[in-house]
């Protein structure tokens, strides 16, 4: 069964290739079938593998499936190899399963779109890349998947390419993540030259032997990988692309920009956690980045007016949690939160998608409201997901995962407080959203009701959002292959529950007031709304100087140099041709002068 591992990435890729080549000529139903079925195959394979893995784990709880040697030269032999261990197992399960649900959902959501087959092709390509990323046994192959998902993200953000704004958002996303990727690339170079291989298990095995904890190279390598991770996971300081990425279709946001791709950074750090353990300062930086992003994004989420942007900031914030967990070394907690987050955040987006779909593309939450009676499934699933996100104690998955993280952070008071404040913020902004959208008077008529294709996946995810959080101790044991349970303490759990409650109440109070009269945004609100001014800052710092440099450079001053030479020769030619005056006496004078000169040389030299 385990040898079927190759099927997990191959099926989506195959689907993508089919759709790219023939999709435009196929009927829609076939497109949808191929699109969803290929993911279903992948999911089924993943499921089967998981079952097999759990029942009869391979030796060492890890399995490497060598497909082929990518290339081999000069001591460099990157393999195209799939590496399955509990961590990647969890990842592929979540990825393929959520992806399958979202594909099904998309069949309904994208029904009327002209780029139907293109959409599914890209989505399949994405799933394939994501699975490759996760399963890669070689850092270079991981990088392939890494770039592949970035590409799909780019393509899907700019899916509706006719609007230049979407194109800009897509490009921004790609380039910002590319900045991180470049750091990642440099990190790979460093790692290869230090460790002599890019095969992940070997690297991780060799790293402690080669580097002492805290050594410069280890720090540099970890820092560079962190650079890649913050880019992909929209953490400070490369976070600004994610809100704009909401320009893509909602299923895209759900799958790529909430559930899977943005957590690739988390996966990377988790995968390389042994390396990070060698670089404590960098690990601390991971935590700080996480905490800061968590708070910043939480604040921004609170003041957004676009339903998807709220969720985008929320995603950043939640990934901040994961980073926080990674930073304190609790990578199983991070992965656990990744899983629950994948469920509830995807669900939130699906719910938002249903709302948007129903309101014919309306995104402004202040123009929604009162949708509870007309869109019951949307309401209920959204509510469940929201509760899970906010961490409704005991019953939701989100509570357990977040609780684990907060408990892990207890060792560092500042981080712990940040995590708790984050919980409060989360609760606050998500209930604000829920109240605004589903409660109060209705502002707009509902045009379309979501079909079954959209509703069923939502409900499945709702179930997972509730039930996905149980058994975290087993989870911890599984992924770490050690008998460590999930940390938890009564104090933390209590405080987290309190934070949830406080957030809920505050949100209610705020909504009551805002429902009467929407106050003019204060400066702080505007600042938060603009994502803490990072866009503004980057625009001034990088974009504009680059643009003006490009504008100045357009003429190519090196070419200008040659043009100058050409001009000079032209001028010289004109000047010299004045000596060709046609005048006989002048010619004779030139002969005489030349002779005088040469005679002088002959006489005096």
């Amino acid at each position, binding site marked *: 069964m385990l040898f079927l591992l190759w099927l997990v990435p191959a099926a989506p890729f195959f689907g993508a290739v089919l759709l790219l080549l023939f999709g435009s000529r196929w009927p829609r139903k076939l497109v949808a079938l191929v699109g969803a079925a290929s993911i279903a195959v992948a999911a089924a394979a993943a499921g089967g593998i998981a079952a097999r893995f759990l029942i009869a784990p391979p030796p060492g709880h890890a399995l490497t499936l060598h497909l082929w040697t990518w290339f081999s030269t000069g001591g460099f032999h990157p393999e195209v190899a799939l590496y399955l261990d509990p961590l990647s197992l969890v990842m592929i399960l979540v990825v393929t399963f959520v992806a399958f649900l979202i594909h099904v959902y998309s069949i309904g959501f994208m029904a009327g779109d002209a780029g139907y087959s293109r959409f599914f092709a890209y989505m399949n390509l994405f799933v394939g890349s994501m699975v490759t990323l996760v399963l890669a046994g070689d850092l270079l192959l991981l990088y392939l998947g890494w770039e592949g998902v970035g590409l799909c993200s780019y393509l899907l953000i700019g899916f509706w390419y006719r609007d230049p704004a979407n194109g800009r958002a897509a490009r921004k996303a790609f380039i910002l993540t590319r900045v991180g990727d470049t750091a990642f690339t440099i990190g790979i170079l460093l790692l290869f030259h230090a460790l002599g291989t890019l095969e992940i298990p070997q690297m991780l095995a060799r790293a402690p032997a080669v580097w002492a904890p805290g050594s410069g190279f280890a720090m540099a390598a970890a820092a560079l990988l962190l650079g890649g991770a913050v880019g992909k996971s929209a953490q400070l300081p490369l976070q600004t692309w994610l809100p704009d990425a909401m320009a893509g279709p909602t299923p895209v946001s759900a799958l790529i920009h909430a559930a899977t791709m943005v957590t690739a950074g988390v996966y990377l750090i988790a995968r390389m956690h042994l390396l990070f353990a060698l670089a404590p300062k960098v690990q601390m930086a991971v935590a700080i980045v996480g905490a800061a992003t968590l708070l910043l994004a939480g604040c921004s989420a609170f003041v957004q007016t676009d339903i998807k942007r709220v969720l985008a900031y929320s995603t950043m914030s939640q990934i901040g949690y994961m980073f926080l967990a990674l930073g304190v070394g609790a990578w199983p907690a991070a992965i656990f939160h990744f899983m629950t987050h994948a469920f509830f955040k995807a669900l939130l987006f699906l719910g938002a998608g249903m709302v948007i779909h129903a309101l014919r593309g309306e995104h402004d939450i202040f123009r929604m409201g009162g949708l509870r009676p007309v869109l019951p499934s949307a309401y209920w699933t959204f509510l469940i997901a929201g509760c899970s996100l906010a961490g409704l104690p005991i019953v939701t998955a989100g509570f357990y995962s977040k609780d684990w993280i907060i408990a892990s952070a207890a060792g560092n008071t500042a981080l712990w407080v940040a995590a708790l404040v984050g919980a409060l913020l989360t609760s606050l902004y998500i209930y604000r959203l829920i109240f605004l959208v589903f409660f109060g008077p209705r502002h707009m008529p509902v045009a379309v009701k979501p079909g079954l294709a959209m509703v069923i996946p939502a409900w499945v995810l709702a179930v997972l959002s509730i039930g996905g959080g149980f058994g975290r101790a087993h989870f911890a044991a599984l992924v770490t292959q050690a008998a460590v349970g999930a940390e938890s303490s009564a104090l933390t759990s209590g405080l987290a529950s309190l934070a949830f409650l406080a957030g809920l109440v505050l949100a209610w109070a705020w909504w009551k007031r805002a429902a009467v009269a929407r106050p003019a945004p204060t400066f702080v609100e505007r600042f938060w709304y603009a994502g803490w001014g990072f866009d503004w800052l980057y625009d001034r710092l990088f974009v504009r100087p680059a643009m003006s440099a490009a504008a100045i450079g357009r003429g190519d001053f090196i070419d200008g140099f040659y043009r100058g030479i050409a001009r000079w020769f032209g001028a010289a030619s004109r000047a010299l041709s004045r000596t060709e005056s046609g005048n006989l006496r002048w010619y004779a*004078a030139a002969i*005489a*002068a030349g*002779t*005088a000169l040469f*005679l*002088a040389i*002959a*006489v005096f030299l």
Partner: protein
Amino acid sequence: MLIAFYIAGGVAVAATILMLLQLNAVHALLCLVVSLLALAIVFYTLGAPFAAVLEGIVYAGAIMVLFIFVMMLLNLGRAAVRTEKLWQPRGAWIGPVILALVLDGEFVYLLDRGAPAGHAPPPIGPIPVGISLFTTYLTGVELVSMLLLGAIVAAYRLGWRRRERAAPEAELECVEEVWGVPQ
């Protein structure tokens, strides 16, 4: 001999300078003839009587006559003198004179360094010249004959004018088309 050389040389230079300053072509030509005759005397003092005679006869005589013929053909009158005056402003002299002075200065310098002072050499009469001419330089003489042939043909061709005569229609048309009004 030496004195004759210097006097004749002085005359030659003076006559040449005068020639250069003349506005009237005929006057200039006369100056030139004087200069050439003086040069003939210089030749004689240098021991080249044969050359001296030829200088007088051929150069000052025959060649200058050619000039005279042409001047007559052109029939240059007083108007020519006036235009000549216009053509030769003082300023025009500066550059060439400086250039010539530089060249001459170099010549004089190099002669001063290199040339033998020497005394009045023994004359070489026509006989050795003739012998040399028809032995060593016989080929040269033949070539000079070809040179004169070429010169004659060239002068003939250039001096040739199309006379009015019944030319074939096509040719007339061709000529007019290409060269406009016939001279």
